[in-house]
């Protein structure tokens, strides 16, 4: 079947088949996920030589390692002999990677070190011919990305307009480096792009998360009144976008004289034992997280106080990880507060995520009907304008971020 991918996306809409067509999903895994920068880890997950974690680039399993020279490597998790995965643990510490099938062993940089009974291969066997496939790996702000494509632009150029927002996001370390404190993983029976769209979709928040808004105090409810707080959505180029829901919380080092919210007063009192009043204000502001969601095409979002990582599984199945972040070496009380905030909204038992998962599931079910209909992405288009950076901007409830992502989708699927 020939699919003309370019016909499936228009500036203000996308075809329903993008959620339901197996052939499109297979093409996406190749044309998108094998040819762009895919987020695989944060540096704090592999702090020491010998540390590793496993991840995926599209559907392909990889191992992220730190070798003895503290270099980070992203290696295809597939023995060069007969393909077995070298490692199924999610994370850990090793000296080398040894295949469980016939014992081929690899160093942490992927080079083949040992082959049992090597003479069975004859005298011209060259270990240098069979290293683990090593992906191109680059970092920005502690985020590790990898790609199979040696020819694409640098990570720096790829992130482009998103870098400013990443720098702002990392300020929630409150003066400490950001560290990963754990993650909530859940899945929903739907296409990965349904989740991708959601990160810069403030329009859904007061509807889907009404029960969450009922559970918070009045001060926070007002803060979360994101459709009436002067926010905006900005197309950052390369498929990335940012939704600024709480403009007061864009730069966490600003407004340090603002009063401490009631819900953080107990924390502030505890921090005051070991910190100056100015430090307390900075830490408390950092604990609450940033006032925006940054969406980076195709698989990572920096969403207020956590990373949201999407992992396509099948055309109608997606895994989501909400990675909790803390202050590395920061006050335990501040990190406890961040974990409690994360547990409250996120994950399979949070007060927010299950409702997101439910409506995404409903999108996938509804998309089984009327496959010739369009997904409408035109909200906020009429008043969209260019800002001084040359970025398209519209109001906070606009679908500007989705239009940006689907334009990138079309560029990659139908170059």
């Amino acid at each position, binding site marked *: 079947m020939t699919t003309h991918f370019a016909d499936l996306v228009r500036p203000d809409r996308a075809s329903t088949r993008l959620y339901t067509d197996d052939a499109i999903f297979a093409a996406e895994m190749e044309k998108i996920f094998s040819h762009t920068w895919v987020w695989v880890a944060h540096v704090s997950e592999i702090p020491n030589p010998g540390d590793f974690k496993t991840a995926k680039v599209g559907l392909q399993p990889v191992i992220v390692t730190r070798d003895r020279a503290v270099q980070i490597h992203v290696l295809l998790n597939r023995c060069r002999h007969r393909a077995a995965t070298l490692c199924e643990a999610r994370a850990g510490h090793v000296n080398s990677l040894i295949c469980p099938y016939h014992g081929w062993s690899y160093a942490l940089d992927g080079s083949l070190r040992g082959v049992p009974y090597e003479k069975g291969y004859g005298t011209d066997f060259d270990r240098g011919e069979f290293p683990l496939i090593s992906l191109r790996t680059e970092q920005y702000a502690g985020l590790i990305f990898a790609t199979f494509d040696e020819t694409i632009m640098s990570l720096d150029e790829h992130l482009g307009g998103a870098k400013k927002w990443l720098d702002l996001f990392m300020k929630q370390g409150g003066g400490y480096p950001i560290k990963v404190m*754990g993650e909530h993983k*859940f899945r929903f029976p739907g296409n990965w792009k349904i989740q991708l769209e959601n990160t810069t979709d403030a329009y859904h928040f007061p509807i889907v998360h009404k*029960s969450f808004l*009922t559970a918070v105090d009045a001060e926070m409810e007002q803060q979360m009144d994101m459709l009436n707080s002067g926010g905006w959505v900005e197309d950052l180029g390369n498929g990335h976008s940012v939704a600024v829901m709480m403009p007061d919380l864009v730069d966490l080092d600003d407004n340090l004289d603002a009063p401490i919210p009631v819900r953080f007063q107990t924390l502030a009192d505890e921090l005051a034992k070991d910190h100056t009043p100015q430090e307390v204000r900075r830490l408390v502001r950092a604990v609450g997280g940033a006032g925006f969601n940054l969406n980076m095409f195709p698989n990572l979002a920096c969403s207020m106080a956590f990373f949201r990582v999407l992992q396509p599984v099948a055309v109608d199945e997606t895994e989501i990880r909400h990675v909790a972040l803390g202050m590395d070496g920061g006050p335990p009380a501040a990190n406890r507060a961040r*974990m409690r905030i994360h*547990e409250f909204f996120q994950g*399979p*038992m949070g007060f927010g995520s*299950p409702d997101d998962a439910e409506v995404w599931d409903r999108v996938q079910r509804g998309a089984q009907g009327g496959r010739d209909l369009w997904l409408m992405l035109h909200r906020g288009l009429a008043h969209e304008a260019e800002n001084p950076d040359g970025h398209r901007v519209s109001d906070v409830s606009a679908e500007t971020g989705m239009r940006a992502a689907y334009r990138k989708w079309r560029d990659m699927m139908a170059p």
Partner: protein
Amino acid sequence: MIQSDLFPLVSFLWLEADLLDGGEYDDWLALWTADGKYVVPIDPKATDFENTLNYAYDDHELRSKRVARLRSGQSVSASPIARTVRSQSRFRLLSSGENWFEIRCAQFLVESRRERERYYAADVTHRLISTDAGFRIDQKVIRLINSTDTLDGIGYIF
């Protein structure tokens, strides 16, 4: 056959299980001590729950909010609330003191919602305090055997 000395404890746990499956949440909330914690950990080895990321770490206020959310009709994932049936067996008294007991059991829960059935197996450990009004739950820890795997949305109370 339950050992006779365990029977009062087991009866209490079965009552709790029945209240949760039956949606009798006010009675369930009343079973707790004032400082009691409802915990669903992620890390199978976690014991310092306060300093660890969990799925749920509820004090009385959060338990009450969880119940309010289930009843509110505002949560699309809890409208309707999943139906659940849970069974508990393999009870073992881990430790006890003058007026407290730590008891672990196996729990198997079947969830049904929108024509989907899902299953969760867990080790459930209760710390129960004996009071004049009967047992009260001081801590309940639900260790799902697949806690580090990817879960589906869970809009009810384990």
